[in-house]
């Protein structure tokens, strides 16, 4: 596998990650969201491995493995169990309709491309072109958190955002130091548990996981 092929493969993977980010925005069913999320994690881990191979940085293999176990297996499993236990309504509700969301998404991709243009000029990594995709993934994750109503989908949006950050780190600087990555991974895992506990609490308090119910928490005038 030569370097140019690795670069091509990496850009294909970047395109797939972007596609899954849009898929998360468009998907209506909550289990479908989980599958797309797992797929995104898988692409991310393969991409990390490819970058690690082509740049000769072997600690990226560990990151890739970590991503694979955590984001493709463990987190989706936890969320699956959560959704199952909580008996969450399967249709995802969104605030903005899907075509508009897609158009906003396209605008965000163009904007991130515009933003990363100066960095692209400076960098000479083979991964420099994927930085825009990484930034776009972050923004799309944030967009997903904004437009969705249910708490679980917001978690998935948050995790997608984290995927984007991870991808950005890989493409801009060939990954963060291993210690940081391990720390982040642990954080995510713990966050998922805490979210789970919160969900149970929210549901026992409000009898729903719809975040609209939280609007009651403001002070009455």
């Amino acid at each position, binding site marked *: 596998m030569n370097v140019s092929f690795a670069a091509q493969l990496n850009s294909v993977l970047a395109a797939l990650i972007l596609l899954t980010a849009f898929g998360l925005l468009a998907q209506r069913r909550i289990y479908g969201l989980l599958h797309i999320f797992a797929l995104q994690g898988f692409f991310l881990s393969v991409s990390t491995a490819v970058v690690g191979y082509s740049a000769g940085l072997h600690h990226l293999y560990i990151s890739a493995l970590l991503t694979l176990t955590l984001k493709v297996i463990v987190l989706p499993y936890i969320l699956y169990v959560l959704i199952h236990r909580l008996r969450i309504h399967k249709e995802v509700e969104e605030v903005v309709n899907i075509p508009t969301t897609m158009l906003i998404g*396209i605008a965000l991709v*163009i904007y991130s*491309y*515009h933003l990363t*243009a100066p960095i692209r000029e400076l960098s000479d990594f083979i991964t420099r072109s994927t930085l825009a995709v990484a930034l776009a993934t972050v923004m799309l994750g944030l967009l997903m958190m904004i437009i969705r109503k249910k708490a679980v989908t917001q978690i998935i949006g948050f995790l997608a955002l984290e995927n984007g950050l991870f991808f950005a780190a890989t493409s801009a600087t060939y990954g963060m130091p291993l210690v940081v990555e391990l720390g982040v991974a642990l954080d995510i895992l713990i966050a998922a548990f805490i979210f789970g506990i919160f969900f149970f609490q929210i549901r026992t308090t409000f009898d729903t996981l719809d975040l609209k119910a939280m609007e009651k928490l403001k002070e009455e005038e």
Partner: protein
Amino acid sequence: MLTQSPLELAIAAILILLATAAIAPVLSRRQNLLISFSFITSAVASLIAVFAGYAAVTGGGVESLVLPIGLPDLPFYLRFDPLSGFFVTIVALLGFMVSIYSIGYVKAFVGHRSVTRLVVFYCLFMAGMLLVLLSDDAYFFMVSWELMAVSSYFLVCFEDDQAQNRRAAFLYLLIAHIGAVLILLSFGLMAGFAKGFENFSGYTFSAMRDSHIPEGWAAVAFFMAFFGFAAKAGVVPLHAWLPEAHPVAPSNVSALMSGVMLKTAVYGIIRVGFDLLHSSDWRWGGVVLIFGLVSAVMGILYALLQNDLKRLLAYSSVENIGIILVCVGLAMIFKSFGMGLLASLALMAGLYHCLNHAMFKGLLFMGAGAVLHATHERNMEGMGGLVHKLKWTAPLFLVGCLSISGLPPFNGFVSEWLTFQSFLLSPALPSPLLNLLIPLGAALVALTGALAARCFIKVYGVTFLGHWRGEHDTVVHEAPWPMRIGMLLAAASCLALGIFPTFVIGWLDIIPETLLAAKISTSASASGWLWLTPVAAERASYSAPIIFIGILVIFATVYLVFHSRTTSVRRAPLWDCGFGKITNRMQYNSTSFSMPTRRIYGFLFNIKETVKYGSNQYLPMLNNRILYHLRVRDRLWQMCYQPFSDASFWLARRVGKLQHGRIQIYLLYSFLTLIVLLVFS
């Protein structure tokens, strides 16, 4: 005749038109004679102007003249260059066809109302449009612009016995004048920076051309001119007058207004943007492009929701002006990055579309006039099945529909194709952001094209096809010969412009050459006249003649093969699914055809749909009467116009309090004013 120079010919044409306008009142007793005489002379004048315009473009030179009339120190400057020549050709060509058409069309008014006014203002209107294109100083330009605007105002309110018509005409006059003020201010700004501002010679276009305006002021001047002309061209959101004025004007006038008057505004934008102001920023082009795209998409969506045939055509003019502006905007963007060849390709697409739109929209409005003439109906819901009765109008109108929908081998497709080609070349721009954004514009243009096809299938299908949808059977009669000839000429030119684009482009190429110093004809017809290859043959090519002949040959072959056989053709009643008689109310009509559009793009409009069930008293299970009511309103009207109109009414009521009707009070006002003035002097 050919010894005269193009400018002299054009002036002769204008003089004939003005003379006709002057003579017309004399003949007002003999209405039929008046119509034949004046429209024949205006057709002759138009023909002369066509030759003049053609010669001016072919010759490629610049000819100017100073007429020592007008105000002291402000003579009229005239100038005839290829750009003016091209637009004169458009105006005069459609003017020629419409004048012939009018001989038949206007006769329908005889006996109902006097047509003297129509004839006089028709001639003045034509002359005004030609003068706008010839004028070479701001003062003369504005005089001609007003002549055009005011005479068209009188034409719009020709049938002034209906309040709706007067209202439409007033709205038209109002928006036209807001535009005119902006144009005037823009000219003032440019003149202010020109040499010789003190002794009035700064008002000439040549002085403006030579002046150097600072970047910021140039932008202000450009945008004032752009929005001023946009008001005339009907660019969204300044389009509100267009769907009101075009339907109420007589159809020959709507053909001219929509087909060519809007083009004078495009001419103005090109003249100011490419000729008078040199500096250009890509953002100017970007703004023009965005306004063009919005007009194109909104125009065609509005058109789709209309049931009034002429109103629909008016909205479709908004769309086409949008497409022309898209091309102009692209050309400005390419120009600002110094890409002359691509800029001239985009400009060529825009100019070609100007010519095409004049032809097919003129044809469609003339066809709408013929339908109106035949059925006395403008609402498409009350028409249908006219294809059996109007043996001439129906196929000619179909040609118009095919052309405007951008289908080969007709002319609309050529300009659409050129537009797409210039879009497809946008990746050559050095700006990464534009590279990503401009393709989205191309997608919108594609959407517009597809919606236009949908819209004109609706127009044709509902108006001409199916069964008669009206309540009563009316006697439908075909249009008289002059009207047929007018439409026939327009239809023939639609086909000719579609099949021989290389000749037209070769003829027009002088315009981008003078404005942008780049020509495309060397590459566009590099592989012979049969092939249109805008950049290079490997890049893209299109051969309209071969497609036309190919389809004809296959059509003929298949037809002949099957007609050598002896399988029979039998006429039978419609298949009614075994339910008994099919009534004409069961067919799709205009409202039902556009239902998917309302559903998908409904959020852009203010739509109110109510369904009432008038239930049967004895059998509540059977709803024997269902009333459906639909109201579609322009959301932009409420956003952009309503506040202004409310504010001005409020202000008017306040000011109205000054009015009492007592003469003493009025005298007191005058007296007080006098005293105040004396104090301050």
